[in-house]
């Protein structure tokens, strides 16, 4: 056998082995990636039901859903209504995930000026969660909800939520 | 020489960097509040008060000053104190939001003016009258009817200062002044004091008595949280989380540091403040005395190390130039 064909054989078998090893590595990488995924117990963290009727006008109520703060703000008559408002029992509510859409700090509510200020990077939102001062790129996020009387079920997509979502108003 | 110049440049830039991110930045972030020297004359309260309350507060603190001038009768005060004991006694449960604190060392840790103001009007004295605008009433609100005259107030305060002024340890000062709202888990203090010693059942591994105490504490916490608006923080390690000056001025006048806070002023005098701060340091920064004892030795070691290293270095570098 010539040297040349021997070299070629070495090259091809080497390539085959390397390729096959690579295949195994991809499999192992997939397993590694899956190990970093959120656990099923985390994903099924459940739904939270919140009764909004005790909320007072212009006073921010903070609840917790999936580890995140949820803002519930009952609007008073003088406060501007918004397409993003939820109407429950005839009153307008602003409901959102209370994390700044910039980098996730919790904005604080200023009842005098009816707006939210995020202390981390100076972002501001109005009482409907719309951005009034950068850097946040988008309004405060409205979590999936279902209205059940005066109660809100978070985590479930009710018809009102779907309507907001289709109109692109949830985020 | 050149090395020293380069060292100076490095040191100056490092120094500027330090100044900018530490003293300067923190000076910008936190407003400075001056202490009133633990004098409780309502000056800050009146200055901060909204227009409609200014007059009432000015009048209130002027009356307190008047009562302070009266000479209290200790014997007459003892009778008044008996009424206090109706609530301020050992083992009393939560009343209207908090457990009435023990007054065993009230004369030793609280200021005279403050005690007078407190008996006269607890909400005004502790500067949390804004909390009781609606239907809620201060849990000690009925005290006014027990001490209707200025002289009766002067008497009971004189009694506290004469008979309830014994030596107090830092821990007891904390228990009397702070513990009804603030647990201290590193000091093993719950809102209801130290947990009793209990044992777990050897066959099940469960400590039923201990669990019962924990439940009682949890129920007490819920009452305190409902009364205060949220559960006041555990103060185990607050000594490292806030500056000494912040804590002292906060305790002296909570509204001055955290406007609108539900925390009442507790009216500590110098002795009470020192004791409470000492306890906070004991639980929050227990290594401070150890650091101060060890520091000079370690630094001294490295000074000598550096001198020896310099001699060694010179021995090698002498012949090089």
């Amino acid at each position: 056998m010539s040297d040349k064909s021997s070299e070629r054989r070495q090259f091809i078998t080497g390539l085959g082995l390397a390729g096959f090893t690579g295949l195994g590595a991809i499999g192992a990488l997939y397993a590694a990636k899956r190990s970093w995924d959120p656990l099923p117990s985390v994903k099924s963290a459940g739904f939270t039901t919140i009764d909004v009727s005790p909320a007072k006008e212009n006073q921010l109520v903070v609840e917790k859903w999936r580890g995140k703060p949820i803002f519930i703000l009952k609007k008073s008559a003088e406060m501007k209504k918004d397409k993003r408002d939820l109407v429950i029992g005839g009153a307008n509510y602003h409901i959102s995930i209370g994390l700044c859409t910039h980098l996730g700090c919790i904005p604080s509510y200023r009842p005098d000026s009816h707006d939210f200020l995020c202390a981390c990077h100076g972002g501001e939102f109005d009482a409907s969660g719309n951005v009034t001062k950068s850097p946040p790129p988008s309004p405060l996020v409205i979590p999936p909800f279902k209205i059940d009387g005066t109660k809100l079920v978070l985590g479930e997509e009710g018809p009102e939520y779907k309507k907001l979502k289709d109109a692109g108003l949830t985020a | 020489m050149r090395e020293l110049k380069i060292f100076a440049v490095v040191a100056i830039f490092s120094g500027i960097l330090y100044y900018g991110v530490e003293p300067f930045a923190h000076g910008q972030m936190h407003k400075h509040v001056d202490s009133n020297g633990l004098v409780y004359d309502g000056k800050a309260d009146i200055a901060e008060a909204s227009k409609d309350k200014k007059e009432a507060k000015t009048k209130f603190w002027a009356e307190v000053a008047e009562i302070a001038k009266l000479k209290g009768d200790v014997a007459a005060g003892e009778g008044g104190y008996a009424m206090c004991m109706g609530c301020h006694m050992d083992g009393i449960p939560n009343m209207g939001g908090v457990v009435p604190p023990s007054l065993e060392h009230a004369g030793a840790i609280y200021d005279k003016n403050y005690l007078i103001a407190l008996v006269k009007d607890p909400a005004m004295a502790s500067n949390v009258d804004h909390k009781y605008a609606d239907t809620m009433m201060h849990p000690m609100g009925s005290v006014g009817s027990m001490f209707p005259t200025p002289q009766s107030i002067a008497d009971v305060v004189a009694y506290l200062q004469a008979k309830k002024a014994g030596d107090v340890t830092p821990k007891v000062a904390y228990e009397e002044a702070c513990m009804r709202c603030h647990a201290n888990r590193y000091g093993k203090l719950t809102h209801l004091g130290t947990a009793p010693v209990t044992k777990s059942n050897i066959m099940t591994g469960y400590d039923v008595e201990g669990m019962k105490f924990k439940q009682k504490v949890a129920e007490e916490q819920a009452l305190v949280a409902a009364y205060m608006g949220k559960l006041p923080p555990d103060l185990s390690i607050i000594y490292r989380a806030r500056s000494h000056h912040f804590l002292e001025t906060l305790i002296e006048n909570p509204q001055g540091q955290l406007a609108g806070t539900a925390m009442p002023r507790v009216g500590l005098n110098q002795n009470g403040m020192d004791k409470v701060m000492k306890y906070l340091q004991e639980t929050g920064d227990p290594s401070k005395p150890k650091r101060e004892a060890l520091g000079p030795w370690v630094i001294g070691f490295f000074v000598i190390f550096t001198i020896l290293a310099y001699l060694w270095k010179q021995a090698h570098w002498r012949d090089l130039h």
Partner: protein
Amino acid sequence: MAHFKKANSLNEWMDQRLGVNTLKKVMQSEYWIPKDINFLWAMGMVLAATFGILVVSGIFLLMYYIPDTKLAFDSVNYITMTEVGYGWLWRHVHGIGASLVFLIIYIHMFTGIYYGSYKRGRELIWLSGMLLFVLFSAEAFSGYMLPWGQMSYWAGMVITNLFEGFSPDFAGGALNSPALVEWIRGDYVPDQAFLGRFFMLHVFLMPLMIIGVIVLHFGTLRLPHVNNQEGADIDFDEAAALWKAGNKKESKVIPFSPVFLSKDVFVLGVYFILFFYLVFYNFSFAMDPVNFDPADGLKTPAHIYPEWYFLWSYEILRPFSKDLGLLAFIFAQGIFFALPFLDRSPNVAPAGRRGLFNIWFWILLIDCIILTFMGKLPPEGIWNVIGFWAAITFFALWIALPIITMLEKKK
């Protein structure tokens, strides 16, 4: 099988099996260092020593640390700080070490930039050094999560949120396929999964990689040799021959051990005096008070800022909208890697003798310090304006670098 003679001494026995004499020559007695250097050349050894201190103190902290979100805070602040004998010492040493290691890294980096020590065969030294900087940053960040205080939690929240742009269903939370930010966290918010993986990174993966790259960094240094104060191109063979012939005064080089090392040890001594002064008496800058409040996902601290050594790059992302901010942040972290290729001048000389580059160097240094200041101050009013222009200046400097170095006359 190799042929072994009977050894007459332990040294010979070792030499036969491990080549210790050759090793000693290569690494110590005939590892030539230029004589014309100053104390800034000792920073590498200072860094190695600090890393050693971090490893040792970390081992003792690790023995009592509990990576559980409910227990982590007290395991550090109560068990280690109160109960463990000298636990407080390890904790303070670890905290100060983690902060000072960055001060020394920055001094080391700016020394390299000033003296042009990234050119003429020294490109790999610079690249491996920058890789170490990135790894140390990851190590510092992951370590900062472990006490699970307020700053740990919110730093974790803010920094992982940078990746939210890659998240299709963050809002819906349906999580059929986890968004990148949730994949990194293993949860909707930083929680147990998050703490567990950062614990692993901090105590195992990152230190392992750092040790590997430190070896690489030393390796890249051996052939091109370290630079000198004048950027002189030394003939190391000739200079070494002079030294070996006993002409120590005439030779331009010294052996690494013991001559160079003796100076390193002296500088280390001075450094340790500062180090332990900070450990015992002035540690707040490295152990932020806010992190002594336990993590609370429902309450952001009034002021959130990273540790001082991340402030300059944090400030660069701050003035911009989110996606632009992320790009700016990546640019700031990455652009230093490109230095040897953006500097188009063939001159290896201290910046003081390089005209425009000298100005560039000092503006860069001052700009980084200004960015650092602004990164900590509250984002409002004049601080915002200064921060914005300092960030713009940073970009402008790097765009200008190839141009001004091309204009530089060859020396």
